[in-house]
């Protein structure tokens, strides 16, 4: 099973992939409309927004949690250490 390198989501069906392209290592939620992968800052903003919208977290707490989670993922391991 493939796991998204950017957010960690398991990818099990074609619709989990950007434009249903199963050769990609990142998921549909980590892609831009054209199918390319979102940047670190785009993804950080997206994950922060998700935590606020669905769980009601404080903005700064959500941003820090998102950053800590991203730091563990293959796509961002080095970026986050900067």
């Amino acid at each position, binding site marked *: 099973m493939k796991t998204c390198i950017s957010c960690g989501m398991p990818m099990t069906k074609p619709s989990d992939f950007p434009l249903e392209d199963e050769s990609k290592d990142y998921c549909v939620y980590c892609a831009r409309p054209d199918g390319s992968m979102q940047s670190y800052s785009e993804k950080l903003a997206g994950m922060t927004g998700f935590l606020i919208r*669905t769980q009601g977290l404080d903005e700064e707490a959500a941003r820090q949690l998102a950053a800590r989670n991203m730091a563990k993922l293959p796509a961002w391991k080095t970026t986050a250490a900067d």
Partner: protein
Amino acid sequence: MKKTSRQLQKEQTREFLLKTAYEYFSEHGILNTRMSDIAQAAGVSHGTVFLHFATQEALVTEVVETYCGKIALRTHELAKSCTSIQEVLSAHLEGIQEYEPFYTRLVIENRLLPPAARDAWINIQSAVSFHFGRVLERTRGEKQVAALPVSALFNLWIGLIHHYLANGDLFAPDGKVLERHGDTLIEYYMKLIHYETEEEKHGREAHESQKGEMLLRAPWREAGRSAF
């Protein structure tokens, strides 16, 4: 590269210690447990445990990360094909139920855990809130859902479930809180968040009057003074 038998044995011991710690934590609590308890439960020396986990914090973090990862993945697997809120809630409880004693410890102790362990715990909630939000947005177009933000509806649900689990000794002393109360809590919650459309209201009222319940109504309600 092929692993040596010594490497394999080391990995197996590590797996075994993680599983033993998971079971011990489930029964006795996480932060109450000492490294020596795990060593004793696993039937190994104190030194063997320290060889794999330098500190208690390292052991706790790895056990919680490993099992929270399993719970989050299981919940995601169960919830990904759900198309109604009720299905998502059932999938959520089914995912927890398989790990209920350990999950309950996390409900009680999560604020006190090492930061990485606590993050892993919050990630379970994110796996649920992802599907909850996805389905709720679709439902809003089809059904009457209380006009509250996704986060409010989600937290209302999580708060309810976690309250029952945290105080399981009072709600189900045999330890099986979800088996005993899960379906009822889903039913109550659904009634709470779905308000009736005019059509549904008329249908219900026609049904109630058929059953003769009109006779039981207080006269003031009939006079059009319904306060509700």
